């Protein structure tokens, strides 16, 4: 059998059965014919008795593997090792791809040989309609809705960095990332592990494209639906998520020497002054964000301290 043109990598950890089966339905409905792609499912230490191989039985080119080391990065590295295509698509267990996703992903990769990682729109499908105030924080949930395609290899600024859900990735980028993480275990800790909500492994992975001289992009025509359980718009959950994301984003920025200088005392004072009349909930979230960044900065400073590297 010839090599698949694209490998779909689905990592899952104790999924909700109805979500994962909907995600599988989305894959089954792909317009790209079955023999042109393969499906790698990594069961990341799930404890339930879900029969994933039964769910994937319709795809003859599928393989279910188990990775017992918990953590999204470990699961993804395992998936990279199992995949045989030159192009990967990362799919979460609550992502339902639009039927033309894989076909478009292949076409885009051909059209844009100089992009190493790209993604598309991720529309929410709410289990329960979300309160209006949460809209401001939907980006934390990985919701991405936009009209214009964007592509770049200029780090920082407004760089379009694809999120994990539906990220299309070239093998060379995945391989470099695997290499870097193997030598720097702190990079693996950027990602979700079980209940922890840190999550910048996606960004780290996408930016690896730039490290090897390629770019990143976002295309409106690549679309998926993200299934959102009611618990995701709970205030406490969002607060915790915000903390985790801003914490790990700051750590990641320090790894990549992209960390902006810490705000000075007078800048903080100004922020405080300007925030006087802001809605209390927004202020609470701002405070959480600041606390996460500060903690990450302190840790990064310790991590990069000279005595760590054996110097005196």
């Amino acid at each position: 059998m010839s090599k698949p043109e694209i490998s779909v990598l689905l990592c899952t950890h104790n999924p909700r059965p109805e979500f994962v089966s909907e995600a599988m339905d989305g894959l089954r409905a792909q317009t790209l014919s079955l023999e042109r792609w393969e499906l790698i499912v990594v069961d990341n230490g799930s404890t339930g008795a879900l029969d994933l191989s039964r769910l994937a039985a319709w795809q003859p080119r599928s393989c279910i593997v188990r990775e017992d080391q918990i953590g999204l990065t470990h699961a993804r590295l395992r998936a990279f090792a199992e995949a045989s295509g030159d192009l990967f698509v990362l799919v979460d267990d609550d992502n339902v791809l639009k039927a033309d996703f894989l076909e478009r992903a292949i076409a885009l990769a051909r059209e844009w040989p100089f992009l190493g990682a790209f993604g598309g729109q991720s529309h929410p499908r709410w289990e329960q309609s979300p309160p209006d105030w949460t809209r401001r924080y939907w980006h934390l949930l990985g919701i991405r809705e936009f009209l214009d395609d964007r592509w770049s290899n200029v780090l920082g600024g407004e760089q379009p960095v694809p999120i994990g859900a539906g990220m299309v990735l070239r093998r060379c980028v995945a391989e470099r990332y695997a290499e870097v993480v193997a030598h720097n275990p702190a990079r693996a800790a950027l990602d979700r592990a079980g209940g922890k909500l840190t999550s910048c492994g996606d960004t780290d992975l996408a930016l690896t494209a730039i490290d090897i001289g390629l770019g990143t992009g976002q295309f409106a025509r690549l679309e998926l639906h993200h299934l959102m359980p009611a618990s995701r718009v709970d205030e406490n959950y969002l607060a915790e998520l915000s903390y985790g994301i801003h914490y790990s984003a700051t750590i990641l920025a320090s790894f990549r020497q992209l960390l902006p200088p810490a705000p000075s005392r007078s800048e903080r004072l100004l922020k405080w002054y300007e925030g006087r009349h802001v809605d209390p909930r927004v202020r609470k979230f701002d405070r959480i964000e600041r606390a996460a960044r500060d903690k990450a900065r302190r840790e990064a400073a310790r991590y990069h301290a000279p005595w760590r590297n054996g110097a005196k």
Partner: protein
Amino acid sequence: MSSPALSVIICTHNPRREYLERAVRGLAVQTLPRERWELVLVDNASDPSLNLWFDSSQPPQPRLIKEMQLGLTHARLRGVRETTGEIIVFVDDDNVLAPDYLEQAEAIGREWPRLGTWGGQTLPEWEVTPPEWTQRYWNWIGVRELERDLWSNLRNDMRSAPFGAGMCVRRVVAETYARVLNGDRLRLSLGRTGTQLIGSEDSDLAFTACDLRLGNGIFTRLKLTHIIPRQRLEEKYLLRLVEALTFSNTLLMLAHGVAAPIPSRAQRALQFYQSLFIARRARSFDLARWRGRRKAWRLAGSRQS
């Protein structure tokens, strides 16, 4: 004869003779076969007129055109109207292209159909050794050295947009720009005019590329030498330049809706407070930038009301 792939346009206004001659000679040694590109030299209201002393019978035999309406934008647009190549390369009268510049420019145009404008490195050749302190302002006089290629289609991140010196533009971008500009006095006025220093028409072309869903890029393999006369390194000149360019850039960004919001009184107070702690020279450059921005906000505000 088939039409040339590339049109090289040199615009000049009262040039220094030896600079212009070097710029033209740099074109005579291009590796791209001569029949693949055309060359026009736009004399922008020079006094004395260029045809009185410039010998255009020598290779590369530029076509001499006279544009009496003063202003770099007018001169460039005239050049665009007079040529037919799919790719336009703007060369300043103090730019000496590397011998493979046109060849590389054409290759990039082929490899990157999604780019609307592209350029490369502008390496300085100083008339006098530049003082150490000027280094942080070299980008304002158009010095750019690159470690790697940069490209993007982001309108609010112009780090990958080429400078005017050696800028390559797809004809569709240049013609769209000409069409949009026709009737937009504000944008027409953004170009350099005579001795006036403002000049954001380069960024305006890059914005136009984004409007057409194309991108902008800069490439290490495109190299030219920018001859920099002594007065460009004087503090007074640099301060004027920084103010003028900040003014025109801010106006341009306001026109394209990507300008940073006008700071509040409290933010300005903070900026002032912070400026008390920096060195004198850095502060005067900060102030020059501040004046440029303020002028632009005022002008934009008066146009809106």
